[in-house]
């Protein structure tokens, strides 16, 4: 079972070239899950006890604001990861995540992996670099979205 998960970990683009030792450590905390279209993966404010990598399908990250309709701020697809809120306190999700179609995810128990990262800082640093890269890309995209570049572009 773990060998199968280890292969899945190694095949996921987010963990590309990770190496078998780290993949084994991660797969020991991981599970496969399927989420039906419309089903929520996480809810804003809930503890991020588990983080998720998209294997197949699509997940919408949503924000609710009182008096306004729900807004999708990003769509994650195959090869992407749902945020890094599991890495640092208070370990809570900052958005809702909803499957847009039948979606297969790799779920990783956050407490399990945090403990492994504390015990093995090489693993922790490797994961931190990957998550900081992903978070940086998402921050950059959010800045471009906030600029409303298409709203002001000339004819």
């Amino acid at each position, binding site marked *: 079972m773990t060998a199968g998960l280890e292969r899945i970990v190694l095949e996921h683009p987010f963990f590309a070239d990770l190496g078998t030792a780290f993949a084994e450590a991660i797969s020991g905390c991981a599970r496969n899950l399927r989420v039906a279209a419309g089903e929520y993966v996480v809810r804003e404010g809930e503890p991020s006890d588990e983080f998720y990598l998209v294997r197949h399908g699509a997940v*919408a990250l949503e924000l609710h604001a009182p008096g306004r309709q729900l807004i*999708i*701020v990003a769509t994650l697809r195959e*090869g992407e990861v749902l945020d890094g809120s599991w890495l640092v306190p208070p370990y809570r999700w900052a958005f809702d995540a909803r499957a847009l179609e039948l979606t297969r995810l790799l779920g990783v128990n956050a407490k399990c992996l945090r403990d492994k990262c504390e015990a093995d800082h090489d693993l922790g640093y490797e994961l931190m670099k990957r998550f900081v890269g992903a978070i940086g890309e998402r921050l950059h*995209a959010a800045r471009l979205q906030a600029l409303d570049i*298409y709203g002001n572009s000339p004819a």
Partner: protein
Amino acid sequence: MTFAYSTPPTVRTGDCLLPQPFPITRTRREAPGVVTIELAPPAAFAFAAGQFNMLYAFGLGEVAISLSGDPGNVTRIVHTVRAVGPVSAALTRLRSGMTIGVRGPYGSAWPVTESEGGDIVIVAGGLGLAPLRPAIYAVLARRERYGRVVVLYGARSPADMLHRRELEMWRRRLDVDVTVTVDHAAADWRGNVGVVPALIPRIPVDPEHAVALVCGPEIMMRFTIDALRQRGLRTDRIYLSMERNMKCAVGLCGHCQFGPAFVCRDGPVFRFDRVAPSFNIREI
């Protein structure tokens, strides 16, 4: 009807500053503040994908607007106009049966024929889809001459998407890979939310033999070009359409100067490596 996909017409010189009256045959609202205008030229009107016309709203002035229709159809001219100033706003208020002044076509063209034999990536942001639409028509008219054809389109929201019917038609084709992304959307949107550059790493092309055509706001083009380069495309295989304040359209007045180039005469379509030195100079 004749096809003019390969050779950009020579810019007329004798009457190049004299607008001709063209009747409007149809208008269509694309999105808030954006209208597509169809004109019936009095004679066959040949143009190449990427070129523009100067449109004259009588009594107000002229603006440069890209041709957004099918270059294979010389009996119908199509422009997609966004209301951003008094002239373009007046153009978006015109109706079928009215007349505007037209001179053109002007400027350089997308390398549609030159890109045959390889993959082609068309990246549009916002109103940037309008100047690229003729290139898409031209590529699809000779689809068998290309490898993979990828179209990426970014818009502000689903309501701001242009040319929806064509996008849906192209998306249904099995030989075109179309991805639309928006900056934000309501819960009923089933498509992608995010920025165009984020789509580039996953495009299914051979970067060694792919050509990219890019048009949109400059900041979007800047980060798209970065992403294309990271994907492995060389700078001499990336083309972009620049936007500047064009007045004469024939390289005389200097209003559209972009470093050593005039956008109206040397552009609007440039090969990226030829403008790269100017592209990141903020003062230009």
